[in-house]
């Protein structure tokens, strides 16, 4: 029982991070109908932004502190939002009316470009670096279960961001425009919506969430390196597909499911070595039996 609860706590925290990343995939997919492979690298850039901001912020707001952590997260999110906009502008916008496959391959190229540029000695270098403690951490004991304050922060941050995102998408003008573009780009543009602006905004929002997810991920992981985004990125993508790609609540639920399953598998002897394959096994099963995902609606192709 203790084992079960402990794994659930770990799984929820990990799943929350996946959920945040998955939201970025799902938003971009909803609006542009392609998989932004570079999303996972934005996550890594977010973690590095926090890494380099920490010594800058420290003299002003001593770290570790919650205020300092919030400031760093906000700044990193802003940096990554700008990077997201720039990537879309340079690499994806010129391809807007091309076949989706072209855009997909470009996205793979962008992802490789970011990864290998960052691995270069003149940028970050390939070595793993220790991530500084941004906020005070403590472990709470509930019976035999250990809950770290970091896990609580991760879950609470995710819930807050989810609500913020839900509010933006459902209750603001720009969110309405996003939904309109996602529903039908041409019709939306006929109604006077500036499609390019909405797409930029979508990338900014998704990248900001990825940056925060990257920082949260780095807080749990021992260190950061330029390829750190790949594994969580792929799992988050699976989460997005699992929940029904293009569907925001679906992405959140998918993230939690993947996080929980992976943690349980990781804690089970005999299965733990295969945890890297689990996300994919789930993905393949879900695509076979319910290709539209848990919350997605099946679409009929029009001729």
């Amino acid at each position, binding site marked *: 029982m203790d084992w079960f609860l402990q794994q659930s706590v770990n799984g929820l925290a990990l799943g929350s991070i996946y959920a945040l990343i998955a939201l970025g995939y799902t938003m971009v997919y909803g609006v542009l109908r392609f998989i932004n492979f570079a999303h996972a690298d934005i996550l890594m850039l977010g973690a590095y932004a926090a890494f380099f901001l920490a010594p800058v912020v420290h003299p002003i707001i001593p770290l570790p502190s919650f205020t300092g952590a919030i400031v760093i997260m906000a700044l990193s999110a802003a940096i990554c939002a700008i990077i997201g906009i720039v990537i879309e502008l340079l690499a994806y916008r010129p391809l807007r009316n091309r076949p989706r496959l072209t855009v997909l391959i470009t996205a793979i190229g962008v992802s490789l470009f970011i990864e290998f540029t960052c691995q270069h000695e003149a940028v970050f270098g390939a070595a793993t670096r220790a991530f500084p403690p941004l906020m005070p951490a403590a472990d709470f004991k509930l019976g035999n279960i250990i809950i770290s304050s970091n896990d609580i922060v991760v879950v609470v941050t995710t819930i807050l961001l989810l609500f913020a995102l839900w509010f933006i998408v459902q209750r603001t003008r720009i969110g309405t425009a996003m939904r309109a573009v996602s529903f039908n780009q041409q019709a939306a543009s006929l109604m006077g919506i500036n499609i390019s602006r909405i797409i930029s905004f979508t990338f900014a929002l998704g990248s900001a969430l990825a940056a925060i997810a990257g920082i949260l991920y780095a807080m749990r992981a021992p260190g950061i390196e330029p390829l750190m985004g790949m594994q969580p990125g792929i799992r988050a993508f699976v989460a997005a597909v699992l929940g029904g790609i293009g569907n925001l609540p679906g992405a959140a639920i998918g993230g939690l499911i993947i996080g929980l399953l992976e943690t349980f598998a990781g804690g089970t002897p005999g299965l733990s070595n295969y945890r890297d394959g689990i996300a994919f096994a789930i993905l393949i099963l879900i695509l076979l039996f319910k*290709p539209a995902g848990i919350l997605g609606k099946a679409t009929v192709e029009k001729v």
Partner: protein
Amino acid sequence: MNHQGAKRWLFISIAIAVGISLFSDQFNRYYLGIAIDCGIAIILATSLNLVNGHTGQFSLGHAGFMAVGGYAAAKFSLVVVPLTPPELQPLIFVAALILGGLLAALAGLIVGVPSLRLRGDYLAIVTLGFGEIIRVIVQNMESVGAASGLKGIPKFTTFGWTFVLVGITIYVIASLVNSTYGRGFIAVNDDEVAASSMGINPVRYKVTAFVAGAFFAGIAGGLYAHHKQFLAPTGFDFFKSVDIVVMVVLGGMGRTAGVVLAAILLTLLPEFLRQFSDYRMIIYALLIIGLMLLRPQGLFTLSGKKKGAKA
């Protein structure tokens, strides 16, 4: 490429293969090694071209099939070679390659039948996932060396073997595409719905292309295993699959000659960029992006007409 063209390729490559292997002692081993790398890349790229280029299915898991074929062939050789006299070894090599190809084809069938009902980027993701699952499995299989890799594979792959197989691969795939049956691949690529209303069963064609592609990827894996004499799970990761996809895209999807040139170019490129090895992958990534922005029809496609890339 028409059928006659395919036949010419077959003869040319077999002639080159036999010719060069007669004098292979006089060639620099390093260059011969690179030539074999090129040949393996050609087999991989043309087989993926059948799936991605001709049939229009975006597969991102070709390295997975290569891994299945490579590991199967290598394990077979490692077990059987000590039991047989040396004069039978070429036969063992052929058997190992065929075994690798067949197992890879079987894997292709297992992945293909259920997942080819999916389209476009969903299929890309399933095949990506499949490639990763294969990697995780070999990484955990003690019998093939797990994470530390499979060592001491006998060196059977020669220039001659490689290019005879290159010729056969190109010939078989070109003939397949140019046969009456093979027109179905192109029909499926051009318009699936229209093709199915003409009585073509798209899933069957896609599975055929997928299984055939996987078979040749398995053969390439076997050649690779007996060329490098060492296999590691990391050699068959996502990047390897991307490599092969880039060859197909660079060459121009569905254009055999272009894909062959691209495979050669992209195998030689890292050798030329050796002194810039820090920048190699950056240049590579920029090449992909630049190509997609400026020449999505492929580098070696003369007509500007866009063909084949659908998702």
